[in-house]
């Protein structure tokens, strides 16, 4: 892994471009997907089929004035949205897009990802607390308890995966699943793992939905109760950064799920692995995120915590034990 | 013995003197003034079965009887009889489910100092209705838990539904 400056520059620009494009055009996909589900057209005026809509939204957000409420800690108020974006982008450093396209393959890349995920939660807490608005304080309190509750089952399922593939390096985990979908961790036909792995996939998927405050778990920015949750006081780019941070968290969640369970950049028939398969899987997962958001109502905070503490954690622990036993047996 | 007779007898206890009369439908002018008592009305014509006129201090007693008979308070309305210089507070009780019977209870208070005891202790529904009647007519309900305006802005100093109210 020669560390020439060009390689670093190329990956810097590449990841920033990937993050920027994704953050903008996921908004467009969400609005188009929601429209199609609701049997309407969605954005279609700006550019062909609304393709310039993200540009229009971006310009609008940038032209608005960022108001800082009076008597509020200005620094934290301004830092919070940036803090929402930074962990999402930095965690793209360790994601193995394909065999040779990976910024930095680190030994403990899984650990780095989860550290950055909890940093994202910190941003929501700061954003809510710094804006001094009652709705924002309630929403940030909810967001913290929700993210905390859903990180534990996520970590336990990741331990199961690490146990199976033997290494914390995302690249190794992905390489371990090469050669056709029956090698993917979700199916894992050899040595009897197929019994429990689909359960851990479902648990992991639910946790990633909850981790990014999306769909049935969007207690943090519950429009109809807390107006806009922690984003209430944020004007132009503050709100813009929070939204982009949310979409990037979805992308990172999808990449993580693909790498851990769906065999990274491996082709389902084992022939031509490549970055296209990786992108296809990510966008399939992101579509399910959107699909879920526009189907279900929102859960209530107690049900949400009950779901995690009473159902997901016991299941993931049981799953861990069963997988450990299976590894011992086979 | 259906609910109408039962309520009518229960209410009649309040007015020992007044006999129960069947009021013929009178043509001109507002209904003739009469002393307190229970009057049976024909329902299809005017929508209520019993018309009770009582003194202001009997209002709580009537409400308690209605409560024991299982009625609910439908609404409280005020009426401003300007030429007789009287304000009238009109309570509507109705049956919630079961056999239908609507009782209209009316009290007359002088316009100068309109004071009526509150029945919000018996029917919490009256809390808001009485605040509204105070808001529009200025009828003061004694020991009402929080007699402030409900629909008009707090700083309004007029009572709009009085007949002599000029905006």
């Amino acid at each position, binding site marked *: 892994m020669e560390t020439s400056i060009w390689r670093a520059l190329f990956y810097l620009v590449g990841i920033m471009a990937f993050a920027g494009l994704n953050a903008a055009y996921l908004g467009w996909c969400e609005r188009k*997907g929601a429209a*199609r*589900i*609701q*049997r*309407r*057209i969605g954005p279609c005026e700006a550019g062909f089929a609304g393709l310039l809509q993200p540009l229009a939204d971006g310009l609008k957000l940038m032209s608005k004035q960022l108001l800082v409420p009076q008597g509020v800690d200005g620094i934290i108020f301004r830092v919070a949205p940036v803090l929402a974006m930074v962990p999402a982008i930095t965690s793209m450093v360790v994601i193995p897009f394909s065999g040779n396209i990976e910024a930095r393959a680190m030994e403990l890349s899984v650990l780095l990802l989860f550290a950055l995920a909890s940093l994202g939660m910190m941003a929501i807490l700061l954003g809510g607390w710094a804006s001094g608005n009652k709705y924002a304080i309630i929403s940030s309190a909810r967001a913290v308890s929700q993210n905390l509750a859903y990180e534990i089952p996520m970590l336990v399922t990741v331990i199961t995966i690490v146990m199976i593939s033997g290494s914390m390096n995302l690249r190794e985990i992905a390489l371990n699943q090469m050669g056709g979908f029956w090698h993917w961790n979700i199916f894992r036909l050899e040595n009897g793992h197929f019994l429990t792995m689909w359960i851990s996939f479902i648990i992991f998927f639910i946790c990633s939905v909850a981790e990014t405050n999306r769909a049935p778990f969007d207690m943090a920015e519950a429009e109809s109760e807390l107006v806009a949750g922690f984003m209430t006081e944020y004007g132009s780019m503050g709100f813009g950064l929070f939204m982009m941070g949310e979409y990037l968290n979805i992308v990172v969640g999808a990449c993580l799920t693909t790498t851990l369970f769906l065999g990274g950049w491996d082709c389902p028939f084992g022939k031509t692995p490549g970055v296209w398969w990786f992108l296809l899987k990510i966008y399939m997962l992101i579509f399910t995120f959107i*699909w*879920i958001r*526009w*189907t*279900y109502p929102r859960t209530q905070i107690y049900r949400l915590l009950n779901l995690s503490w*009473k*159902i997901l954690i016991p299941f993931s622990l049981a799953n861990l034990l069963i997988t450990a036993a299976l590894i011992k047996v086979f | 013995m259906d609910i109408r007779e039962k309520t009518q007898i229960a209410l009649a206890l309040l007015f020992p003197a007044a006999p129960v009369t069947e009021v013929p439908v009178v043509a001109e002018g507002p209904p003739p003034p009469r002393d307190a008592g229970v009057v049976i009305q024909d329902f299809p014509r005017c929508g209520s079965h019993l018309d009770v006129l009582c003194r202001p201090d009997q209002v709580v007693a009537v409400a308690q009887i209605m409560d024991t008979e299982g009625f609910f308070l439908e609404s409280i309305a005020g009426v401003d009889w300007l030429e007789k210089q009287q304000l009238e507070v009109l309570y509507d009780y109705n049956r919630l489910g079961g056999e239908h019977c609507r009782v209209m209870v009316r009290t007359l208070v002088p316009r100068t100092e309109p004071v009526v005891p509150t029945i919000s202790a018996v029917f919490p529904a009256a809390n808001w209705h009485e605040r509204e009647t105070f808001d529009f007519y200025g009828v003061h309900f004694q020991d009402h838990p929080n007699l402030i305006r409900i629909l008009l802005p707090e700083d309004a100093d007029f009572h709009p539904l009085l007949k002599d109210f000029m905006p």
Partner: protein
Amino acid sequence: MSGYWSDIFTGSKSLVTGLLITGREFFKPVVTEQYPYEVPTMTPLFRGHIELIGNEATGQPNCVVCGMCQRACPSTCISLDGKKAEGEGAKGKVLTSYVLDFTKCSLCGSCVESCNFNALRFSKEYNLASFDKNDFIMDLLKRLEDQNRCKQ
């Protein structure tokens, strides 16, 4: 504990059926009407703001300035006046101005109902948005003349 398992089972089944329904909807054609390009057609009895009816031949309004509609209107939006009809043997009045203040009109139809000379009807006008309040003070006589002119 039994509630625990049944909850999970029925719950996930209901979640999946919910997803299938919206999934099926995803591929169905669009239902909405694209307004600026597809213009809706109003039903015959649609109540836009009122307008004068001119008789086919001469194009003059049928109105005889009796003022019934002015009195019937609950919010006094109609103001009209006319002058004696001079000329040979023409009796009655001729309408000179008929102004409708549409800001106060609640489209109750009392005016059209009270007019016995078939001089008023509801127009099919539905896009009535404008920035200026005076656009709603409409001179219906001029509107009738425009309609006659564009009919020729």
